[in-house]
């Protein structure tokens, strides 16, 4: 076969890049941002709903813009952490946990804001809505752990099979 084209990248240099990419620091910051975005969006929504009516149009616009911004951040960060940059099964688990903790934060903060402003119906509505988010997030955590267990199981089966093959070839050699 013809010689491979010349490149300055050795295996060690590439491995250094891989190692740097595997470092969890940046993704941890992104997870923290995701968690904050979920809680902050919950609080902004609760404030918007419980604000005494009638509200001037510019305040409606501001609340809507802040909520949209929060939701956009949640979608962008969720997409990055679950699809674009998720190198290990641990990352999937950590992101699922960030979603769950954020959901719980949303479930506590938004009804609390509603109660503080004397809006029990809004508090119950937010409680129910956030309960749904928490359930979805919990399901994601469970799925992430199950996927990791599945990987470990496949690895164990592979190792067992390799051992059996080794044993069979040794027996054949004897």
């Amino acid at each position, binding site marked *: 076969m013809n010689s491979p084209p010349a490149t300055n990248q050795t295996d060690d240099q590439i491995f250094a890049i891989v*190692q740097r*990419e*595997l470092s969890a620091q940046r993704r941890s910051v992104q997870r923290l941002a995701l968690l904050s975005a979920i809680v902050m969006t919950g609080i902004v929504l609760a404030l918007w709903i419980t604000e005494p009516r009638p509200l001037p149009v510019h305040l409606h616009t501001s609340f809507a813009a802040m909520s949209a911004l929060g939701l956009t951040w949640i979608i962008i960060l969720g997409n990055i952490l679950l699809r674009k940059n*998720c190198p290990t099964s641990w990352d999937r688990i950590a992101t699922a946990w960030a979603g769950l903790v954020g959901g719980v934060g949303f479930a506590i903060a938004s009804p609390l804001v509603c109660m503080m402003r004397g809006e029990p119906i809004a508090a119950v509505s937010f409680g129910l809505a956030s309960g749904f988010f928490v359930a979805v997030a919990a399901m994601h955590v469970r799925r992430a752990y199950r996927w990791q267990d599945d990987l470990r199981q496949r690895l164990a089966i592979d190792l067992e099979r390799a051992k059996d093959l080794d044993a069979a070839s040794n027996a054949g050699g004897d």
Partner: protein
Amino acid sequence: MNNPAPERPNEANLVIRCQLGDQDAWRELVQRWNPRLIGFLGRMSDDSHKTDDLLQSTWLRLVRTITRLEQPDRFAPWAYRIARNTLNDQLRQRYRSPSLEPNSIATEPSASDETLDRWIESDEIMIAMRSLDRHDRLVINLHYFEHLTVAEVADVCQTPVGTIKSRLQRARRQLRQYLENETHQ
């Protein structure tokens, strides 16, 4: 042309270990796959100076998205697909901001398969490959140099098997013509 598949011992196992975050597995995967990706990208890229960038980008994508690979035993087609997508992105970028340097190799459109086989072993293939259309070059590269089956090539290109077969046929014909022209000159 014979197409012997190289052995890939425990590749699925290695990929699973990478998905679990095992650094030793990553080192092994890099050692095993870096030469293959260098060869693949080198043969696909018109500009050898860009191969380093392409290689780095391909590895970054591989690391970042390895958990999306549902079937670890299908790592090879998946890795080549990522390399191909990286290459396409680079070409798209170049299209948006075209360089002033013209492509020095002009497109040149019959010998037997054995002659082609012998020729494939030579370094001349690098020049000849560049005379091929981008899609044809990809299928020749994957099938004859990276030893992927036609079905696997179809998987990488996300194209029906029949189309891959006809691309292979067309590319072989063009390479043969190129070889004939070279030998007659």
